[in-house]
């Protein structure tokens, strides 16, 4: 579908700074920190090593001060541990490396969707866009596809680059030693599986949180002012009413579940085994129905939309 390709490119022309420049800058910054790790002495590195956060790695940091450079030390530590521990250390590090980009991505999607059908009504350019033979449905669809598939993939490229660099830096310290980088780093890391899992998780989250994203684009299509205030004001209002008039918080919990990524990752994380049944679960289907309804509302409102 040629039209769809052009529509997605159009989104990138408009939002280049948050779709391409921002992830490039963040990736560049953390790449720089990783490089510092390779040249800095361990005592410097301790303040720079932002990606080691979890409790179990505190002992890492204590020992760090007496060793060579950071990656050499990491290699020695990994080599000294059984496979299962290597996997969990490397996984934790890989996850930490992805955190800044994915955290940013969530906000980028949020603000992009909120502006996607609002800004052009504001600056009157909707009169130009709607004067071309592009249907309202494909317009809305192109924006959702951009937000939930294409831009996440761009950010994931940054994540992959950071993870790959960290692994390469650690393996490079294996040169000249009798430690096998393949066994201590690459096999436990399982990069391709990790990346596939990341793509899968993003895909599932996009569907799981479709009520939220659909809601954002619907607000963007309908609001005559302050879309951000509407987007969060109404759900908060509903939550408040629920708290006042009932002693339950089912609606509030449902909204919380389907908005906050942490709650998705902690409580509703799919696995390779249950992926299919997960897709067909009542929770997921209800999310798709509600999300679909909001998207339909957005398309309908876009059809009626005029400059504001």
């Amino acid at each position: 579908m040629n039209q769809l390709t052009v529509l997605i490119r159009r989104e990138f022309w408009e939002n280049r700074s948050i779709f391409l420049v921002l992830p490039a800058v963040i990736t560049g910054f953390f790449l720089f920190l990783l490089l510092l790790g390779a040249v800095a002495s361990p005592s410097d590195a301790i303040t720079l090593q932002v990606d080691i956060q979890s409790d179990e790695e505190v002992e890492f940091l204590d020992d760090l001060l007496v060793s060579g450079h950071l990656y050499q030390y990491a290699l020695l530590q990994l080599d000294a541990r059984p496979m299962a521990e290597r996997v969990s250390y490397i996984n934790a590090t890989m996850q930490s490396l992805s955190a800044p980009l994915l955290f940013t991505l969530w906000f980028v999607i949020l603000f992009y969707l909120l502006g996607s059908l609002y800004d052009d009504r504001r600056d009157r350019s909707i009169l130009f866009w709607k004067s071309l033979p592009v249907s309202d449905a494909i317009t809305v669809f192109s924006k959702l596809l951009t937000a939930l598939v294409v831009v996440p993939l761009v950010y994931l490229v940054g994540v992959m680059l950071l993870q790959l660099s960290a692994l390469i830096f650690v393996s490079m310290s294996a040169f000249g030693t009798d430690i096998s980088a393949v066994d201590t780093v690459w096999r436990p890391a399982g990069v391709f599986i990790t990346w596939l899992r990341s793509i899968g998780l993003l895909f599932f989250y996009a569907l799981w949180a479709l009520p939220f994203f659909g809601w954002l684009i619907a607000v963007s299509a309908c609001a005559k002012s302050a879309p951000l205030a509407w987007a969060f004001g109404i759900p908060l209002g509903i939550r408040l009413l629920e708290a006042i008039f009932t002693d339950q918080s089912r609606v509030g919990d449902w909204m919380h579940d389907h908005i906050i990524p942490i709650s998705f990752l902690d409580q509703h994380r799919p696995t390779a085994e249950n992926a299919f049944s997960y897709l067909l679960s009542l929770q997921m289907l209800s999310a798709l129905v509600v999300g679909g309804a909001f998207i339909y509302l957005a398309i309908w409102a876009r059809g009626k939309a005029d400059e504001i």
Partner: protein
Amino acid sequence: MKGLSDIVKVNGISKHYGDFTALSNVGFTIEPGSIVGLIGPNGAGKTTTLKAILGLTDFEGDMSVLGRDPRRGRHKVMQRVCFIADVGVLPRWLRVSDALNYIEGVHPNFNRSKAEAMLADTKIPKKHKVKQLSKGMVTQLHLALVMAIEVDLLVLDEPTLGLDILYRKSFYENLLNDYFDHETSIVISTHQVEEIESLLTHLLFINQGQIVLDCAMDELDQVYTEVLVGPDQLTAANALGPVHSRDILGQKAMIFENVPRGELAELGELHTPSVADLFVAKMQR
């Protein structure tokens, strides 16, 4: 789509914004190959009428544009209709070259080399974004984009508003030179009558949401007559019910509607009124 009896058929459409009536039972048709001037003062309902034709706003009543209801199939209608809104509605962040890329990608009837040729005649740099262009250049750009699309109907809503006289002149020259060999119909809205008078084949006057005049230019002289009436003929002239009269050098210039010229000949010198005078006459009633 050529060969349709009417490009646009508007059957009594109305539009309300709350208590305000923007359009009240507006009806007219646009024939193939005609250049229609939709003329009215600010706030008369020109833009609302044009937006209704383009499927950009909702309304009550019936309308067909190229055989379709624009409210339902806007994107289908837009394959055969182009639109330039008053002052530049091109998004400020859009690069000139990307504007070409975009329209080429979404419009089946866009002739890119034609647009490039027209841009080459201007001083518009293709690498610039719209926000870096002057107001006149933005209009030139929009015109170049739109003229390179082969359509049945071109809708221009105050296309030269806010431009200086040089751009305004060349805008209409380009428009004429390019579209006279086409069979495209054009609707132009404006409140500056004189500028487009010579282009038009049809006149539509709109005031307070109502069509107050709907006439082909070449039938104007059969319907409207301006007579320079001397003081001695005043009573006789007033008896025939002029729609407007104004003082000129001690005489009265009176405009009559649907009064046979034979009856008017004795009153004084007969003219066909200028569109501007007709406009004033119709708006002041």
